[in-house]
């Protein structure tokens, strides 16, 4: 134990540096992600699963989910508001891009401006949904957001005069740098530019969210999550503070929507169902609610498991040539299981296991850890450390 503590001590200085220079840390991490991840994709065994280009395309999609997760983290992890319809704002961002930059409306507003517009529109919807509902107790909010998350895709589906219904809107414009850095259109076949773009967007969002978390606003969010009544009795306007958390979550989701739509070039209502809301929530919970780095890592890992891991697991098990077992009428053919079909079952299992063994998530914030492990040694040690400080 004392060895472990010595190690913590040793790490104290770099840790203090990183805490002091949070934004720099984010920028360095983003640079590392940009350079190292595509390189890792060429290593064994990853190169066996796909060429680098496909991997990088997958990373860009993972970036979308990282963005969604860090946004939802503000709502659920910091302010403690259970939002079950988060995908609705994702859809609103994506459709805003479809209206602003496709032949459907004939508008061709540049992607970079649409990022701002999409985020703003999503924020507006966040405020409109939050204003009447955030005064309600937590469980009501969960129901209302669940309903909103269902209504948005249904409205998109049925208002086909304005949205082309199930077919979706196609032919969305690609981002363009207008010759800057020698780049014109991004082109749907070149994932590297999308990957770079999403890393930059995530890094910017990260820096902003981290700074907010460390401000009076972030403290107010956490105070509300800890004890809303006491927070109000200390002068916090709980309605406006919760509304702000909700709007910021929606803004981030809107950003993700615009980027996602531009990368895919198509938007249709089936991309924004409850499964998206649920997946992002699972990412936040498994990653470690309240800790932005944990949530980002959780989102990336889960996305890669979902999109590469399960496929490869299937291929791997098929390769083992497990014989078909016949138990009376029951035929068990492990080799032919398509694990992707079972991803939500696996999510469920992972969540249940996690809640039993490590409810604070993989990379929890210090607060969560304290909250969920009342009197473990770990806490006692933490306390001892804190007492020893002069």
């Amino acid at each position: 134990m004392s060895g472990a503590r010595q190690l913590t001590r040793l790490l104290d200085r770099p840790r203090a540096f990183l805490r002091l220079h949070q934004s720099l840390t984010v920028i360095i991490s983003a640079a590392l992600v940009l350079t190292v991840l595509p390189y890792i994709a060429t290593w064994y065994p990853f190169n066996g699963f796909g060429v680098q280009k496909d991997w990088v395309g997958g990373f860009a999609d993972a970036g979308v989910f990282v963005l969604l997760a860090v946004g939802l983290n503000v709502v659920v992890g910091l302010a403690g508001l259970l939002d079950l319809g988060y995908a609705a704002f994702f859809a609103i961002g994506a459709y805003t891009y479809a209206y602003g930059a496709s032949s459907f409306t004939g508008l061709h507003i540049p992607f970079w401006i649409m990022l701002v517009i999409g985020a703003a529109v999503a924020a507006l919807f966040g405020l409109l949904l939050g204003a009447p509902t955030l005064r309600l107790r937590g469980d009501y909010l969960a129901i209302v957001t669940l309903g909103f998350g269902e209504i948005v895709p249904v409205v998109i589906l049925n208002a086909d005069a304005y949205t082309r219904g199930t077919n979706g809107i196609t032919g969305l414009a690609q981002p363009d740098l207008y010759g800057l850095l020698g780049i014109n259109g991004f082109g749907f076949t070149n994932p590297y530019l999308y990957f770079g773009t999403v890393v930059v967007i995530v890094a910017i969002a990260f820096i902003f969210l981290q700074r907010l978390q460390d401000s009076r606003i972030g403290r107010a969010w956490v105070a509300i999550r800890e004890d809303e009544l006491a927070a109000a009795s200390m002068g916090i306007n709980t309605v406006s503070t919760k509304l702000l958390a909700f709007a910021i979550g929606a803004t981030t989701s809107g950003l993700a929507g615009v980027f996602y739509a531009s990368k895919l070039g198509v938007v249709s209502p089936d991309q924004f169902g409850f499964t998206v809301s649920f997946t992002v929530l699972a990412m936040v919970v498994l990653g470690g609610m309240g800790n932005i780095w944990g949530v980002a890592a959780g989102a990336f890992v889960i996305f890669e498991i979902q999109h590469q891991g399960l496929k490869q697991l299937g291929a791997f098990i098929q390769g083992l040539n497990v014989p078909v077992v016949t138990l009376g009428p029951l035929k068990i053919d492990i080799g032919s299981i398509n694990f992707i079909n079972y991803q939500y079952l696996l999510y469920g299992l992972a969540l249940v296991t996690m809640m039993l063994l490590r409810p604070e998530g993989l990379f929890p914030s210090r607060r969560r850890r304290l909250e969920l492990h009342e009197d473990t040694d770990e806490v006692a040690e933490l306390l001892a450390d804190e007492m020893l400080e002069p």
Partner: protein
Amino acid sequence: MSASPGAAVPDAATPAATPADARPILDARGVTKRFGGLVAVREIDFDIPRGAIVSLIGPNGAGKTTFFNIIAGLLEPTDGAIDFMDELIVGRPVRAWAEPFFWFILPGIAVLVAAGLFAIDQGIAGVIAAVAAIGLLIASLLIAVIRPRWYISTLGRAGIFKSGRPNDIVAQGIGRTFQNIRLFANMTAMENVQVGMHSHMHATLIDAALRLKRHRTEEILSQIEAQKWLDYVGLPKRSDVVARNLPYGDQRRLEIARALATRPKLLLLDEPTAGMNPVETTQMTTLIGRIRKELGITILLIEHDMRVVMGVSDRVTVLDHGEKIAEGTPEAVRADPKVIEAYLGAPAQ
């Protein structure tokens, strides 16, 4: 350690130095609270002189905490009104029906402008005005939900009144602690106090996101001030300890530091010495006396420990079954037969 808390706080025995003509800082009239059939507080008339320490005592379930919560805006009274610094803060709504008109004034003007512009020609100006009307309507409704201070005072000037929410009451200058400690358990002592300072900090979303000077200086100043409050209540070395890990007595002190950080003019303390040992109790009594003497804060105290009550109070009010049964100096109340009866014949020692 002094033999009696009264000796530890020398000024406590002398009545508060209030001029005879000064109006009370808090004035409650006919406050009643019903929970279904139970009348928890019945037609209480009650005032607190500026700069005084007034105690509210009474047997369990007498309605003391309920009365506190009404002052603090956590409970809506069934009847009655409360003035704080000559301003109505809690009471029946006045002309509440007129409030929605305010929401439609600006959007209404925009709609008229839009209609006018459309009448002249079908140009873009009319469309802009129509969009502005929708925007203003949304903004108005958001403001009505958020109820910022300027909105409340604007309504006040039009004679419209609604009881304040807890945060409005804090902003008016009433701070409080809770009978069963309600700290932000997983935040550090420092952060707890900083939350108390929330309404006196002004950094906006933009300031924080861009780390502008306002945010940075305010953040540093808030840490200094929070440390000052921690020192003041006797927790100078606990700033980085998570609230839940503090010993019980320290948690009570931290609650007071957090309440002081709201910069109250009136401090409501709900049983600040509950569960404390005699040493801690004496220290707390001294602290309460100092808060009044050094900071000039008026204090309303709920307390069961008669030594504390007799030691610091200028005046004592006794509640029983929601009714005020006695009021006066500690000595007079202590000798009052009705009070002795309320405490089941056991005279307050």
